């Protein structure tokens, strides 16, 4: 540590150095206000010392000189404070749903790749753009409420087309249960002509509306519906989601290809698991709609 700061602990000394650097950048920034009665004298002494150290004349107040001085103070300051653990910090931000979405490492499940086939590359770009630069986003944090999903993010983005009929909103849902990785399980194009695109409070609502349009009725734990926000399921029990063909006029066994999409995560400290954002989508109907929009 430089002599002028030797009477201070590392963090306090770093604060003095940081305020000195800020004062060189903008002395009217309120953050440069001295915290100790003798801080201004210490600051001047440090700056004098650093001018000498890096060879800047005492009278040189050029922008470049002040910039170099501030950078030198930053280096000294960085040596006093422990560096953050980048991965752990990014992971913590991701867990809280506060990680900037263009930092996520995106992976897309195979079902989506298979559905789009040779058009997958285009769709992948659209999905990634939706996540990185969404118009809207909604995040569920770590497990807290039994009735809420956890560590799941939804993103939407409008993709205008010169033919307004083909403009659509991409709705993407992914889970953040592995550090900064976002695993995309659902990606649906929602075309503007659908009334429900105009009225939705949040992205879960939009997904629910979409499931009402393209979904098949399913039975989960004795309850029937097109969409389930979250439900606990038992380990190793097959066929926990049953398509109710009787109540699905458009989804007869022969003419439909119904996919049940959901996120399965371990409940903390319990043997059960939780399934969230459960939708059963008739892929034949969905594909037909995509084609009608020039897809």
């Amino acid at each position, binding site marked *: 540590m430089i002599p002028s700061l030797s009477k201070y602990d590392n963090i306090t000394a770093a604060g003095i150095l940081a305020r000195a650097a800020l004062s060189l950048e903008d002395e009217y920034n309120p953050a440069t206000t001295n915290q100790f009665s003798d801080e201004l004298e210490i600051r001047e002494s440090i700056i004098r010392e650093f001018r000498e150290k890096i060879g800047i004349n005492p009278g040189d107040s050029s922008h470049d000189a002040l910039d170099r001085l501030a950078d030198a103070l930053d280096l000294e300051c960085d040596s006093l404070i422990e560096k953050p653990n980048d991965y752990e910090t990014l992971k913590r*931000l991701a867990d809280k749903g506060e990680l900037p979405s263009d930092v996520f490492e995106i992976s897309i499940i195979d079902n989506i790749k298979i559905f789009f086939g040779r058009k997958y590359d285009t769709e992948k770009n659209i999905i990634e753009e939706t996540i990185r630069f969404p118009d809207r986003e909604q995040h569920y944090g770590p497990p807290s409420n039994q009735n809420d999903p956890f560590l799941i993010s939804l993103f939407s983005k409008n993709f205008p087309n010169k033919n307004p009929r083909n403009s659509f909103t991409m709705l993407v849902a992914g889970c953040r249960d592995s550090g900064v990785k976002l695993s995309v399980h659902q990606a649906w194009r929602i075309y503007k002509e659908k009334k429900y695109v105009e009225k939705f409070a949040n992205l879960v609502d939009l997904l629910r509306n979409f499931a009402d349009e393209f979904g098949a009725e399913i039975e989960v734990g004795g309850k029937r519906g097109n969409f389930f926000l979250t439900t606990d399921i038992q380990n190793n029990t097959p066929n926990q989601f049953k398509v109710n063909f009787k109540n699905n006029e458009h989804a007869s066994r022969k003419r439909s290809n119904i996919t049940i999409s959901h996120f399965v995560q371990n409940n903390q400290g319990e043997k059960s698991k939780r399934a969230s954002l459960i939708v059963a989508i008739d892929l034949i109907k969905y594909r037909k709609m995509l084609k009608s929009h020039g897809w």
Partner: protein
Amino acid sequence: MAGLILYSTNPWIAHDISKKYLNGKHFVWCSEYFDPTMAPHGTSESAVAPSSSPKGIFETLKNDCDGEDCHSSLIHGYKKTFSRLSKSWLAEGIIDNVQYDEIIVTVKSKSWKIWRPLLYLIPKEKILASGRLIKVPRSKRASIGTELQIHDLYVDEFDFIEGFSK
């Protein structure tokens, strides 16, 4: 003629940090005009340098973000400023170690969207009445044009427009 609004352009991360860690308190540089070149010719408001113009900063930030310009001097400068500020806040006990790490790691992350510009629209009357509008001395301004600061602007005292093309 100057209007009822003050204009200030800041990166989104500045607003986010103020909201999350500083109880909603913002420090801003601002101007009577979004585009000082539209101020009456010959007035000090018209002489604000492009580097201090809310419009100039907005366009530069927007272009740098849209183009993911790794050599953006404006974003480079903001990164240094937030790194210095967070160290000072840590030393003053305004933020704790966890929050310090979050600011440093976010600012140094590969994210571009955190630098997208927000144009703050600040109703002038209340700020003036409370004596919080500070005229910056000539020696600290980029040019002879009038530049203003507010040291303690709170989230409920302004609205903003977001700029990002992607």
